[in-house]
């Protein structure tokens, strides 16, 4: 088990387009294992390779059952609906913004041995697929939001959400 350092906004590697993975070897497996450990340790729900300084098309996403999905060379093949909500990033700690994303997302990717598979999910996990795959093209969520929320705005937003939850 090894933890990797998560790089922060401002580092060049977060703005670069990542290269396709062609070798499904032990080095890739170590990278994936380390990324999973780093994700669990950070308390986040998704992590892309450029966030640990590796410019390859690799990311890991934790779904609502707390299972971690490994995605290599992922592409979004279908989307449906829309959701608007709060989003944050391990490379932009403590900052949150309102971002609109599709509500259902279908992804095609390779597993750690190179086999292609498809996975579909909704809600938070769908949002996370979009967020991580954008990292692989050098984009951060902050480019998709008008402004980052101040602490007061954030508290207010959470309070409103809780009231809506209570109504349900």
């Amino acid at each position, binding site marked *: 088990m090894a933890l990797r350092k998560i790089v922060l906004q401002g580092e060049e590697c977060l703005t670069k387009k990542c290269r396709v993975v062609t070798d499904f070897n032990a080095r890739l497996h170590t990278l994936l294992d380390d990324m999973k450990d780093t994700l669990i340790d950070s308390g*986040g*729900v998704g992590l892309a390779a450029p966030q640990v300084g590796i410019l390859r098309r690799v990311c890991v996403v934790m779904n609502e*059952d707390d299972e971690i999905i490994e995605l290599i060379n992922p592409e979004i093949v279908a989307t449906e609906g829309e959701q608007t909500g709060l989003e*944050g990033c391990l490379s932009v700690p403590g900052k949150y913004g309102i971002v609109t994303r599709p509500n259902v997302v279908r992804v095609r990717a390779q597993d750690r041995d190179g086999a292609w598979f498809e996975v579909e999910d909704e809600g938070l996990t769908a*949002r996370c697929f979009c967020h991580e795959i954008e990292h692989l093209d050098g984009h951060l969520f902050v480019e998709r939001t008008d402004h980052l929320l101040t602490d007061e705005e*954030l508290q207010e937003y*959470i309070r409103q959400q*809780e009231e809506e*939850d209570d109504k349900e």
Partner: protein
Amino acid sequence: MSEVKRSSARDTALEVLLQVSGANAWSDGSLKRTIAKNKLESRDAALATRLAYGVIQNRMLLDYYIGCWCTQRPGHLEPVILNILRLGAYQILFMDRIPSRAAVNEAVEMVKRHGRPKAAGLINAVLRKFSVHREDMSPLPDGSLAERLSVRYSHPQWLVQHLLDQIGEEETERFLRCNNEIVPTTIQTNYLLTDPDTLEKELHQAGVSAEMHPWLGGCFLVSGTGDLERLEPFQQGHFMVQDPAARLVALAAQPVPGSRVMDVCAAPGGKSFSLAIDMGDRGQILSCDIHPHKLNLMERSAQRLGISCVRTALADGREFHAVWQEQADLVVADVPCSGLGIIRKKPDIRYKDPGELSRLPEIQGQILSNAARYVRPGGVLIYSTCTVLRAENEAVTDDFLAHHPDFERESFTLPQPIGETEGHITLWPQRLDTDGFYICRMRKKTEEPE
């Protein structure tokens, strides 16, 4: 990607467990305070409550299994680590809704957040065993019946042995199982301000599901209420929360409207109020307690319920006050006790040190003898506890009657299915779905025996 983290239900449950096992805090009070401090929303508050109570109710069983798979004895683990293990194990074994994997991951994250990253491997290894073996757990230890029941239902062995001697194997097991179940709350209509039909409508309007108590008139079983005290009908004093057993104390006392009553260990006041309601708020009830701050709380509750016949006084139940001598038509002595009848509501009571409990019968006897001096000739004396142990119940009243020939037990009638009693009764949770309680009714003879 990262999410906004609200303070989690699991962290709150852990905080409560650490307070309960460390600083001698009681679980119900600690839960209330910690949920408020962490500002949990209602769904998370419910989960935190279920987790904390669940671990306390199954602590010995969980520790037994943890001991099977952990090289260190559970008692030697650091409290933070042990309680994170218990929380994870409880979720895996008892909560089908939570996937085992999530329980394991959460526990691993928790131990890191609480500054023990080196224990993450241990937590992971032990909890994975629980998740793999949840369908075929290790057999319970061999040994005596008391030992097996003790681990299976997480009650201390001394208590199990007492019960086996008192009520036999089958009832003991039912009692123990019943103590680990979730109980609905019982509330009583305040007839001074409303009637059961109106109250039922008000409760439904407030979104509370209320069901008539199967055999206790004017009482309802309520569930899904969140914080009952925030409800409009509560604020208006239309009901009070009271277990059927506590209500039965008033029914055993049968106070006559206009009479003079003393409640010598009154806080938090439920029995005084129940008596006041039965008396139509006519007469005088003097509610005493040894703690000044509890008197204020009682006065506020009385005000909420629209009761004016209750007055409070600061008094130690063991100390004699000559001004009250032979003044009361009815004296209620609901004495401090081990509380072993209310384990289903306060699950940690079972772990009380039995050494501390052994002093109780002496104190209970002193309070009862002192209370007896306030009863006028021909008046009634009620002794009650919320425990089921003979030593605090029959043994205390037997001893009192042996030394006070001017008193005798008097039979009383309670609602069916109980019916007529022989002057005293022990109520059991596994029999009538009430708290475990003891009620004894005695009358002071009008003439001194020759």
